[in-house]
């Protein structure tokens, strides 16, 4: 550190701006994704419920984000005996 550094304060604001831009880009996508997962779960549940009696907590939807692709994992548990709804 030299005496001149005293007169030249650190410019930290550009770092703040860049960090925020990267972070918020990510957070906005994941907020949108969790909505997507909730919508998919509701609709999958609705389709299955049309044909089979199923408690609503037995449909689990998870989204895994990776660099190249994202995977959607859907786990549906049908309690035995399977009770079909009348058509």
């Amino acid at each position: 550190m030299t005496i001149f550094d005293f007169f030249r304060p650190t410019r930290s604001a550009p770092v703040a701006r860049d960090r925020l831009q990267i972070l918020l880009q990510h957070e906005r996508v994941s907020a949108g994704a969790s909505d997507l997962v909730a919508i998919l779960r509701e609709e999958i549940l609705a389709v299955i419920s049309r044909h089979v009696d199923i408690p609503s907590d037995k449909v689990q939807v998870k989204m895994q984000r990776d660099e190249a692709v994202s995977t959607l994992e859907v786990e549906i548990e049908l309690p035995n005996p399977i009770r079909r709804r009348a058509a």
Partner: protein
Amino acid sequence: MSQVLVVTSGKGGVGKTTSTAALGAALALGGNRVAVVDFDVGLRNLDLVMGAERRVVYDLINVVQGEAKLQQALIRDKRLETLYLLPASQTRDKDALTSEGVARVMEELRDSFDWIVCDSPAGIERGALLAMRHADVAVVVTNPEVSSVRDSDRIIGMLDAKTEKAERGDYMEKHLLLTRYDAARAERGQMLKVDDVLEILSIPLLGIIPESDAVLNASNVGSPVTLAAAESAPARAYLDAARRLEGDVVPMIIPADKRVGLMGKLFGRRAA
């Protein structure tokens, strides 16, 4: 036609209550009938900032629960006869605020006031959601600081998803109020600039409130800064912001207090 305005931020301590009081008083000075409503149940402070803490008899929860009439709970400001305060409860559980009850009170307030300014609690929980629920327009209070900007971004997302207006498919009007802004520090690259925050949050700018002693002085004496020190830089910025809310086109300047200290002179701080 009455307008319900929510003052919100996500993060605490950025100036929601100060801004609610200052904007409410500024709108009342403009000849409007104004009610400022404290939604921060359990941690009410709008009464204190408005200087009405010893006049609270009934509160928002009493009205929501039907234990008091709206007229009994509203406190008329001693300085401005068109400015009223509806305080929050300090003792009751925040779950006592029901969604239907709040909707009913807001409808009743719309009948008697031009502007209803709702002071949201911090956070993204029930209280904050109830405060924004019935709003026609939102003021997002943000400090030029990373955590405040991030939380504001989150709140903007909720305004676009969880308000009645958004659920109807209407556009939720949102404005940015940048508080505690220090133009000199921003110029030196030590604080996010107005344009940085605007670019990140992408909502229109309502006003820039400069960091100033006048704000703390006003809350010390229990008066909105727009009444306590109307000539101060933050008060002028709030008065301009209130005019913009009413649809006036007011040039955006960053007001500065006239007194410029030695350091300010040394570093060429300009009074914009």
